[in-house]
């Protein structure tokens, strides 16, 4: 019996979860248990945070630590058992992911200082999308003018990968799958024969579907207009797009995707906008795969998917020239559980 400590770093705090893993079990992923002691560590400053981490690790005494990393660029294509040789590559990612990567690096360094021998395993959200076809991956920009790495990555890869695996287990004939991750920043991807071929998010999670407070896709000309007409700074516009937009902006009050589905009458217009964008993306996904065998839902708001699935499938069937309705699937596990299960697979096969 071993303990696994799972860290999910957000921008200013790190959530943690503890699991007990029975390594000797034939399938430890299914038998691993989540303990109740979970919480958040605020990244106020290195000293306080380090003490909190130290206390936590001393109390839990984990065999391994798993960290979810938002962005892995082209370098990190799979789960990674960390060692110091990867530090420079991680540092290089800071420019692309300036909020998440520094927190991850700091966390790794703190853990190494406290327990140098502990295994640290990194789970990259972008790894699932690293082999997206070039036609989907690149933007119509001249990279030599911009001197930037601007590619589409996708951002809920850990959820999507687990959701697709579950779907392929439940429906063995499913080759063309739409995976819809209903997180506060939602995302849809088309997965053909197990590989993603289209994804709604872009070089950041902001592109694509509107979220709780994120704008999703907008006309690029709008941003230029905001800067020129309102003389808003980049920081202010970023704040508007990430914290004051999305379904909340349409509702005129702070709402979540869950609120909107639970109060359909009150938020009818908001719901219409959300479903409209989701439907359009489903169309793009079907075009990318020339068909659809299954739809799978996951994420924090997966409970709303039962209503959503009905609405989407009805519309998809209307246009499908008599094709069979896709099977529907639900992944109800949280991100931390998915990571714990992936860790279990890893220790059985590689560690």
């Amino acid at each position, binding site marked *: 019996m071993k303990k696994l400590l799972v860290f999910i770093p957000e921008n200013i705090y790190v959530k943690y979860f503890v699991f007990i893993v029975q390594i000797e079990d034939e399938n430890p992923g299914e038998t691993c248990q989540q303990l109740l002691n979970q919480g958040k560590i605020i990244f106020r400053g290195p000293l306080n945070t380090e003490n909190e981490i130290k206390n936590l690790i001393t109390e839990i005494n984990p065999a391994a630590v798993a960290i979810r990393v938002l962005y892995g660029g082209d370098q990190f294509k799979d789960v990674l058992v960390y060692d110091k040789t990867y530090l420079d590559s991680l540092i290089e990612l800071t420019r692309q992911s300036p909020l998440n990567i520094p927190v991850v690096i700091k966390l790794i360094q703190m853990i190494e200082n406290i327990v140098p021998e502990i295994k640290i395993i990194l789970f990259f959200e972008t790894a699932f999308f690293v082999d997206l076809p*070039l*036609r989907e991956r690149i933007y119509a920009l001249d990279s030599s003018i911009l001197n930037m790495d601007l590619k589409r990555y996708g951002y809920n890869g850990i959820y999507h990968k687990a959701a697709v695996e579950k779907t392929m287990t439940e429906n063995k004939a499913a080759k063309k799958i739409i995976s819809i991750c209903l997180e506060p920043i939602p995302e849809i991807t088309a997965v053909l024969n197990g590989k993603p071929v289209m994804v709604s998010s872009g070089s950041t999670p902001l592109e694509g579907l509107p979220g709780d407070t*994120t704008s999703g896709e907008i*006309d690029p000309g709008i941003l230029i207009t905001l800067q020129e007409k309102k003389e808003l700074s980049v920081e202010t516009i970023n704040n508007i797009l990430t914290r004051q*937009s999305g379904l909340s902006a349409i509702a005129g009050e702070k709402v979540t995707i869950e609120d909107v589905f639970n109060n359909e009458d009150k938020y009818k*217009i908001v719901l219409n*906008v959300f479903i409209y964008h989701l439907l359009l993306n489903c169309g793009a996904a079907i075009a990318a795969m020339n068909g659809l065998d299954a739809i799978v839902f996951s994420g924090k708001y997966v409970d709303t998917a039962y209503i959503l699935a009905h609405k989407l499938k009805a519309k998809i069937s209307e246009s*499908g020239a008599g094709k069979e309705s896709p099977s529907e699937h639900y992944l109800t596990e949280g991100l931390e559980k998915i990571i714990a299960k992936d860790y279990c697979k890893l220790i059985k096969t590689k560690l």
Partner: protein
Amino acid sequence: MVKDINIFVINCGSSSLKYKMITMPSGKELFGGEVQRIGSNTSEPSQIIHEVNGEKEVFLITIRNYIEAFKEVMNILEDSMDVMPDIIAHRLVKGEPVIKQDTLVDKLTVSSLDKLKELAPIHNPPIVEVIKSCMSRYPSLPQAVVLDTTFHSTIPDYASAYALPKKLCEDLGIKKYGFHGISHKYVSEEAAKYLNIPIESFNAISCHLGSGGASLCAINNGRSIDNTMGFTPLQGLVMSTRSGNLDPAIILRMVAYSEGNSSKVNNILNKRSGILGLSGSSSDIRDIIADAENNSRAQATLDVYLWRIKKYLGEYLILLGRTDSIIFTDTVGETMPLVREQVCKDLEYWGIKLDKIKNKKVKTYPSDISDSKSTIRILVVKTNEELSIARSAYNLIRLNFKKTTDEKITSIHT
């Protein structure tokens, strides 16, 4: 009896200026032509193709901008034609909030004309400059502007709204306006007529693929319900020099990288991106197609261009539920079989099947290039924005005069 008037239609695209002299109300075309490749980065020089009764004359002239294009065209007319216009009608890409409907230019002030430039920075400035050139060269000649957004006024609120704070949207008039409406309307009416389906129940996806700009339009019961362009003509497909859709965060990074110089970013997005940005060599997809076989960067450019069209096609196929027709139009849509073939490839899920032989042999318009087993008719329809503009301008003149059309026509002639 209604007296005929000659309407000279000027249609400024993002890299071309098309013109036609049309007699209304009959709609008879007296002559026309196109100034191609105005000041753009392509492998071939600018030229004017002037056409009278099917006979073409080509003038190879270096044309740096739209004012020069307009002057050269009018010189040809004055030197060689015996018909001069009674009215000039312009296609205006975007007018709201300055102009909300088709209008006569004499009702506009110079300052309101200048305000129009900002609304569509790649299209409206040349149109406004051509209008002003026309005012100074022919001060007594009436001019009309016909909006490209009117057809899209039927897009529902849930499709036209951006998920941005309401106050910002209200203050700046931010919503999806859609563009190429004149063309989408014209070709959908022509396609419905060709398929013998009443326009009121006709569902189609119109693919306006120009050499400069391009957009798709979802048409439900003859009315636009969505367009790939948005608040500006920058959104949507990959175009000759326009980026199309981008992650909003990319634009913010570009502005930050340019130290807050948003006009520089605007210039990059509108004039140095798209096909030109991807290929690094040409802004014309026809050049890219010619190079693709032996040039991996050209092939990648073509792949991205086609992929974006295909994804939007999928979006609108789902949206419409039942689709009667996919329509290809404008320079690329009408003349590039490879584009049509690749866009329609691997869409059997919706019963779409293109006949490759028919597709390669399109000689007349409209032309049905679908396989007999295809559940959706795939048509190539030659757009005629100029005729559509002339019709709108003629109706505008009739509406603007309280008296009879005869009296109005008389007043124009005097």
